[in-house]
């Protein structure tokens, strides 16, 4: 915007640890999406560094970022973004086809509770079911990082809780680092760690003593 530099994020230092469930909280415009884009290899910061294990993502080319996403990152979008022309099973298999050591697509769909909806097209599924297909699609490649952008944002209360329950189970069973971005503070209780972003900076990092099961959450 003209010659005024806008910093979406400034002075953020953050580690995501193996197997951990992190909730990143913040109001809209706080910079949490920018953080997720950088973590997911969709964007690179103008200054500072991003590392994934021994890779330095800061200087990565577009191709390298694509490979990083392909090999290590699973995404879950607010609006599911399933391919409408593919069935639940095919949406999941589409990703497993380009992975080196994927899980069985069918197994993933059973894990998210959709074992009986394998051959349904997205238009034949409810919002919650679509989001669970999206989760199955994200985890089928055995990602080390699962990034979820407002995964319950488009869902009602009951359905939202089912989706969170699936995410919780995936995290526990597959030991995938799971980062959930949300403005819904109630979700924070199910995390190992809660990071609150405000105006582009980390306002607070809090460790939960105990991870509350999604069933116990209320908002």
């Amino acid at each position: 915007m003209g010659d005024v530099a806008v910093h979406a994020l400034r002075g953020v230092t953050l580690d995501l640890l193996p197997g951990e469930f992190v909730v990143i909280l913040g109001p809209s415009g706080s910079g949490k999406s920018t953080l997720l884009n950088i973590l997911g290899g969709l964007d690179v910061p103008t200054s500072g560094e991003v590392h994934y294990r021994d890779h330095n993502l800061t200087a990565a080319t577009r191709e390298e970022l694509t490979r990083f996403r392909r090999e290590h990152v699973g995404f879950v979008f607010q609006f599911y973004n399933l391919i409408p022309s593919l069935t639940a099973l095919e949406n999941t298999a589409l990703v497993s086809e380009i992975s080196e050591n994927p899980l069985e697509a069918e197994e993933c769909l059973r894990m998210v509770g959709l074992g009986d909806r394998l051959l349904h097209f997205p238009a034949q599924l409810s919002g919650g079911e679509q989001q669970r297909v999206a989760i199955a699609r994200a985890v089928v490649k055995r990602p080390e990082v699962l990034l979820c952008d407002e995964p319950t944002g488009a869902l009602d209360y009951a359905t939202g809780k089912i989706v969170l329950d699936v995410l919780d189970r995936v995290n526990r069973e597959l030991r995938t680092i799971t980062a959930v971005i949300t403005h819904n503070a109630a979700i924070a209780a199910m995390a190992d760690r809660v990071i609150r972003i405000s105006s582009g900076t980390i306002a607070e990092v809090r460790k939960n003593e105990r991870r509350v099961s999604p069933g116990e959450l209320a908002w």
Partner: protein
Amino acid sequence: MRLSALDRKLLRDLWHMRGQVITVALIVASGVATYVTMRGAYESVAREQQEHYARYRFADVFAQLKRAPNSLTLQIASIPGVSVVQTRVVVEVNLDIPQLNEPAVGRLVSIPERQQPMLNDLFLRRGRYIEPGRHDEVLISEAFSSANQLEVGDSIGAVINGRWERLRIVGIALSPEYVYEIRGADVFPDNKRFGVLWMTREALGPLFNMEGGFNDVVVSLAPGASEAAVLDRLDRLLEPYGGLGAYGRDDQISHRFLTDEIAQDRVTGIFVPSLFLGIAAFLINVVLSRLVSTQRNPIGLLKAFGYSDVAVAVHYLKFALVAVMVGTAAGAPLGIWLGLGLAHIYQNFFRFPVLTFVAGPKLIVSSIAISAMAACLGALSSLRSVIALPPAEAMRPESPPQFREGIAERLGLAGLVSISARMILRNLERRPWKAVLTVIGMSFAVAILIVGFYFFDAIDYLVQVQFRTAQRDDVTVTLAEPHGEQARYDIRHLTGVLRSESFRIVPARLRFQHCSKRIAIQGLESDADLRRVVGQNLDVARIPHDGLLLTTKLAEVLGVEAGDTITIEVLEGERPTRQVPVRGTVDEMIGLSAYMDISAVNRMMREGPTVSGAYLSVDSEKLPMLYSQLKRTPAVAGVAVREAMLESFYRTIAESLRISTTALNLFACLIAVGMVYNGARVALSERGHELASLRVLGFNQREISFMLLGEQALLVSASIPLGFLVGYGFCALLTTAMQTELYRMPLVANAKTFAVSVLIVVTASVGTGALLHRRLNGLDLVAVLKTRE
């Protein structure tokens, strides 16, 4: 003037979708350009023909005869229905043109000593009319003059009735009788070696023993007169004088060619533009329906704010109209420019005093109206959905597309097809009509190319069969009069002649039941090798010992079959009438011919071994000597040199064919580019969100390009076999439509024609695909995380 907010939105939409707007506009431009060119050429040539004929009094009836006294003129004039009679002396002589090795044939036509209005009157391009009393002065036709670079003041040599004469050119002239200047039996015009010369009757008459007589008559008819009745009366009147049969304009060769060409322009001027505008309408439908579905929200808003259904629909109609009018604005001037070029080419074939290409206001207005119609047609279904959309419904996102198992699954082949391929197949199956129409449109691109190249194949084949397999002589010599055995011997002993085969040509009228045809019966040697009779399939037909061999077309005209017996009325000498059996037919591609064994002809004529000329095979090194010998041989009326004629043919006809084919190729490429580009752009707009999601999930650009462009590739592939069928069908249709008595185009298309057509369409498609592949670079990956499509 301030633009309304809605019009500003229109401009922005147009700018945003400029790639698609431009491709639609280009296809419209092609359609409008061909319409303006062909329709304009049709109108211009037809008008010029009419005016030229009227102003220079083109005759209605023509007849040639041996010789009749001038006193017969009054009797002809008294035939009911005859308005003006003009008798002439017309003879063909051997000419010696400077800078031309071979002898040329000059047709000398008599004109009055003092210039006065006459039938088939002359337009003097340059120079002056012949001065009374100057018997060595001639006017020559413009086609002949420009082919040989002959100018006023030049001289040419001629063998006139056995005497060597010098003729001085005093003027260059044009006649409505020779707008298309071609020698009777020829297939192609050869203006270098055939020309018309006009001399005064006073000069020409004595040279050919025609003082007080004539051998050619032209007649104009009174309004409402029956041509058939006049022809009949004239024939009966001329019969004792060696009449060769009178005929009307329909059989006058220049008129026939010109009229055929005009008719062809008329058909092309309807057919080709309809094809383009049909495709443009389809593309408008594709582009506009996508625009409307992405703008459901704004449509709802506008309606909610109080814009009427019609006002909103008109807004989208304007989009289609602007795209089409941009094309029309480019196409009309292009059409005029091409038309001027075409008129220029026409001037090499059709000699008018002036041939101006005029695209009048009516033509321009009609081209605007036609393209506007195409826009409306293309926009129709989108406008209907705009009007039908209730505002509340419009504000909601479109319901997600419904998919079902594709054809692969239903056939149990799912395992064989990758998931990406399944996406492609299901997308196509979801809108089968769109896919079908795209394939049809693309197939037209392939078909147009095939048709363009087919002309070359057909003409090459025709030349190959007619001038390499059938006609294998180097030189054909035609004698002024039939001669006996001695002539055969003399010809064989001309310089450089390796082999000679005589022929006997007899003018006759063939009759079978109520059908009749004037034709020259060709008597060939039974073991002829230099001139064989060859059918379309290269099968050499044997000349029967007795009876006739007819070309299939002539048999069709007369309604006879092998085994029938027909009546031959000979129009020469004793004019005998004979019953002769038809022994067979041969599907030659050129002209109407009747063949007989030369001795059978001689028997029929009750004459000795008489010849009209000979086909020669000549030692090429001795050709120049042979030519100069022939130029000065009085008995020789004409010399045809095969290679020279072919060379002239390829220079003129093939050149103009190359120009029109290049234009067709360009147009076909535009169709291919327009189809692929719009198809892929709409697919990108519909599926950009989906593809960006896949990029986020780690798919690389190549993989998503496959998903997007694979659909287009599949459509292009499907269109190729269909294009072959449609193209071959067009060729077959053209072959039938262009079947005239003058020639029949063979239905042959080489494998190369198909291969090159595919190559061009595939190259255009791949180029367009590459352009779009780069566009995929620009997909906004971040946006998909946040937005619902």
